[in-house]
């Protein structure tokens, strides 16, 4: 296992280097440097101003030299300065955007997977029943719906017509104008508390499964939920920052609901497929034969094994959050990493774009790595060595 991890790690580093170089080449190859064009298209600018602006961004050097300088800086931790928002450092742009993306998508993924997994379990169990048909078609319709359009329709319905939630953005100016802390700090706090609660409930439920008596198991499980969720609310309801947390939370409601609606079907179908497969396995048949109730067989035996591909896909989904965030963030006016990526690519702001690309690349690499290891650890039948 150790050797495998090392080998994979070296491969990952090499792969990242190739990825980094390729991304740079692709961005560099876009015809017409838009920074230069923007300057050139302004008749008020004397030629000196243009030359000077290019020099300051290092654009006067030949491309290969630019790449070499940029690479050196990148791997010594200096992400450089944005070209389109000169002289703002790239790292400060990312520090500004990342908490927002993490906040939105961690909550959204949590709901997607909770709903998707439950629905998938239900589907596998109600095979060829009417419920399956309805849920499948509804799920798939939502899964393949033209998402930007659907998102805007939901805004129209829930934010405009019903007025339950704000139309867009992540905070309301009137609440935050004199706030003692920034929205980003607030999000970090909220995310941390959410993570703690999830970890607590997760670990307790997992530990509870090892208990012998079913009644004990249930009690511990329910207890964990009550304590976890209770602590979460107790903390925030008494917090002096409650008003700010509430503001962010209410802005989260619509994007999270819409993401859950369009995303749960994917999880549902994976769960269903893998559950159908596991249900043919001997141990499920044995469990049935033992006379356990259907619900018991479903929840305790089949579902748990089927969890493996679902958690794998969760890990991989995390890796695509930024790319996937482009549309969501544009529609809901949530200025996170996705919007940064989109804007930087369109503006050909190579330092920012490359940093965002690298960020997604590293996430993807780690995701795949985690997925492989997860498989190796959770499913003894698949040894890691067999994975290409």
């Amino acid at each position, binding site marked *: 296992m150790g050797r495998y991890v090392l080998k994979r790690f070296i491969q990952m580093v090499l792969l990242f280097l190739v990825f980094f170089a390729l991304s740079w080449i692709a961005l560099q190859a876009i015809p017409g440097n838009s920074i230069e064009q923007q300057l050139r298209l302004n008749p008020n600018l004397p030629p000196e101003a243009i030359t000077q602006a290019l020099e300051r961004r290092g654009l006067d050097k030949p491309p290969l030299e630019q790449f070499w300088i940029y690479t050196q800086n990148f791997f010594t931790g200096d992400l450089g300065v944005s070209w389109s928002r000169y002289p703002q450092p790239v790292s400060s742009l990312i520090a500004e955007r990342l908490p927002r993306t993490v906040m939105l998508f961690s909550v959204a993924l949590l709901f997607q997977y909770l709903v998707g997994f439950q629905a998938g379990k239900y589907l596998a169990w109600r095979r060829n029943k009417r419920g399956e048909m309805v849920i499948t078609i509804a799920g798939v319709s939502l899964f393949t719906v033209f998402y930007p*359009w659907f998102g805007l329709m939901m805004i129209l319905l829930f934010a405009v017509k019903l007025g339950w939630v704000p139309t867009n953005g992540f905070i309301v100016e009137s609440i935050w104008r004199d706030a003692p802390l920034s929205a980003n700090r607030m999000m970090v706090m909220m995310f941390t508390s959410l993570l703690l609660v999830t970890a607590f409930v997760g670990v307790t439920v997992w530990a509870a499964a090892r208990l012998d008596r079913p009644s004990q198991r249930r009690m511990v499980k329910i207890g964990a939920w009550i304590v976890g969720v209770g602590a979460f609310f107790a903390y925030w309801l008494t917090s002096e920052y409650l008003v700010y947390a509430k503001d962010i939370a209410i802005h989260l409601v619509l994007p999270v609901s819409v993401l859950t609606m369009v995303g749960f079907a994917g999880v549902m179908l*994976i769960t269903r497929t893998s559950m159908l497969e596991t249900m043919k396995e001997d141990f499920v048949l044995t469990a049935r034969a033992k006379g356990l109730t259907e619900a018991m067989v479903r929840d305790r035996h089949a579902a748990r094994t089927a969890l493996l591909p679902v958690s794998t896909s969760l890990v991989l989904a995390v890796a695509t959050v930024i790319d996937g965030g482009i549309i969501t963030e544009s529609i809901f006016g949530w200025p996170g990493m996705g919007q940064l990526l989109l804007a930087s690519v369109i503006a050909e702001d190579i330092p920012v774009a490359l940093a965002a690309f690298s960020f997604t*690349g590293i996430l993807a690499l780690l995701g795949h790595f985690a997925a492989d290891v997860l498989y190796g650890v959770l499913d003894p039948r698949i040894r890691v060595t067999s994975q290409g």
Partner: protein
Amino acid sequence: MDTLQAPEEFEIPGDVELLLQHEPLWRIRLRLMRKSFKANWKLFKRNKVGVVGLVIIIMFALLGIAQPILFATGVWDKRVYDVRTGNDTRERIVEMTVVANVDDVVDPNTQIDRRRLIAEGRNVEVGDVIQRELKHPWPPDRNHLLGTDPNGSDILSQLMFGARAAFGLGLLAAAVTVFIATTVGSVAAYFGGWVDSFFMRFADLLLMLPILAVLIVASSFGRFKLWHLAIFLGLLGGFGGTAIVLKSQALAVKVKPFIDAARVAGGNNWRIVTAHLIPNVMPLSFLYVMFSVTGAISSEAVLSFLGLLNIDMSWGLMINKTQSAGYLLNPSTWWLIVPAGLAVTLLAGAFYLAGRGMDEIINPRLRNR
């Protein structure tokens, strides 16, 4: 996300072919095909999800074919219905009385509020009677079954053109994806070693890319047309995720006895791959055709929605134009947005559903107990 689940094992109808050497091979193949088609059709029909998908696909195919026929038979005049320059220039002048406010408009056909006319740059007073041309977009009527867009172009015609674009794009992208993925997957699985490592690392590389961002980069290259997009998507999918899935399927086939048998019988590697391995990976490949079409249609729609493709017309572009002109969230001009939005959703969904239906045939573990 769900491209990564590879069923581990499949039924291999191809086994039979080695046993029957005396009949011409193509005949046997044809017979087997027909037989398996019939059997599969029965299985497919049992799963209504797949049938729904198929019906929708056929509906859109008919819609796509209808447009050239309407032009050829002269039912539609090119000058009015062409998706690029078509324009209904008939003047529809109506006489209207100016009122102070929208609330005062009792009959929208004869009354108009002053603020709108001021917004149009006409300085009028309340009580004036004015001649006003009825501006596009026009709601659906006899001549334009789905109305017109803000430039006076026919929506139904655009929808039909978009259907052809979607089919062309989707099928080309899917064909390229699956051709490459099947070849790469089979070759990687059969030869293993560095060939395998190379292709799999390459696939990893493609999976690392933020796809939408990469497409945006690609679309900024010169004259990036729809078929360029199709091939680009095909390459991304073919060398990327789909290759990994098909490789694991090919691995499962590789260890079957008939492959060993062929090898013992002295078949060369290339022949074994093309004659034995690939045909047995094909069913799953065919399934991925369906999923690739869904992916391609959605990708095009998103790119067009962001206004990044230089193409004549597509469903995504219809939505983009509606949005940039400001009609997107306007319920009273629903015909600008609903047909195109529904079409993308329905066709992408239909291919997905059809794929799900096929999954039931191809993946025996999913069959009924």
